[in-house]
């Protein structure tokens, strides 16, 4: 097994990013009050916006920072932004507890809607963000000449 560096710098940016992301989440928790019926608006908004931003970042990373070893910035980008900021900003535990609280209060329909809705919309947000960001960042491929196409086809079946 090759010896591995300790990666202290990665852990450091994860910690800093995580703290900042959590602080933003806490601020929104304070600012956004739950609905009168108990719907956990703050966490719902936080988790879905976080999922959307992750979709954007994943595409940006693939296009702009394809090689994590290329530079220090490239190496620290995903740990800081994805693992740190977005991981600290979004939360699965609070989502679970809020579902539990709704169920305890007898609000079963709200609980199921919140639980299922968060998961489904979370996936939709990531997918939509990736779709839109790809369209923006990656140019439409140029039409290729007939001769080039024939050459490519020969390679495939050769």
């Amino acid at each position: 097994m090759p010896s591995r560096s300790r990666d202290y710098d990665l852990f450091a940016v994860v910690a800093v990013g995580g703290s900042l992301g959590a602080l933003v989440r806490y601020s929104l928790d304070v600012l956004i009050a739950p609905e009168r019926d108990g719907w956990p608006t703050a966490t719902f908004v936080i988790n879905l916006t976080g999922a959307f931003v992750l979709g954007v970042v994943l595409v940006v990373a693939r296009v702009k920072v394809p090689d994590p070893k290329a530079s220090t910035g490239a190496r620290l980008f995903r740990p800081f932004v994805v693992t740190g900021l977005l991981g600290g900003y979004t939360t699965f535990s609070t989502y679970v507890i809020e579902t539990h609280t709704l169920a305890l209060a007898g609000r079963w329909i709200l609980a199921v809607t919140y639980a299922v809705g968060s998961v489904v919309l979370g996936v939709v947000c990531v997918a939509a963000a990736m779709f839109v960001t790809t369209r923006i960042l990656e140019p439409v491929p140029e039409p290729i000449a007939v001769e080039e196409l024939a050459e490519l086809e020969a390679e495939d079946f050769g």
Partner: protein
Amino acid sequence: MTLAAVLGVLVGAGLGAPARFATDRWAIARFGPRYPYGTFIVNLAGSAILGALTGAVAGVEAGGGHFPVFAQNLIGTGFCGALTTFSGFSSQVLELSRKPRRRVGTAYASASVVAGLFLASAAFALFRLAS
């Protein structure tokens, strides 16, 4: 939004996020990168811990006591909030659902939520009784 609360969030998250990162790296080294075992583990652990905290707070307050705000923010909003991730979870469900066998994504999502709820409610009940 007191200083104590903010400090609790910062310190707790400063521990929780690296714990998630370390668990991810360990899981990939142990099981390979194909399935998100690391995220699954931390999401369940965080749900259990937050369930315990919420139960303890409920128990203490039911008895007329007061659970320190700093501790709630340190352990709950900070540590559990940063230990767990919903964005990573969502992208993993999407990724696992892309393959021809959509069922893996659904299974992962269902298992995470159901197991998370089970652990959280068990921990809540236990710690509320004990507080």
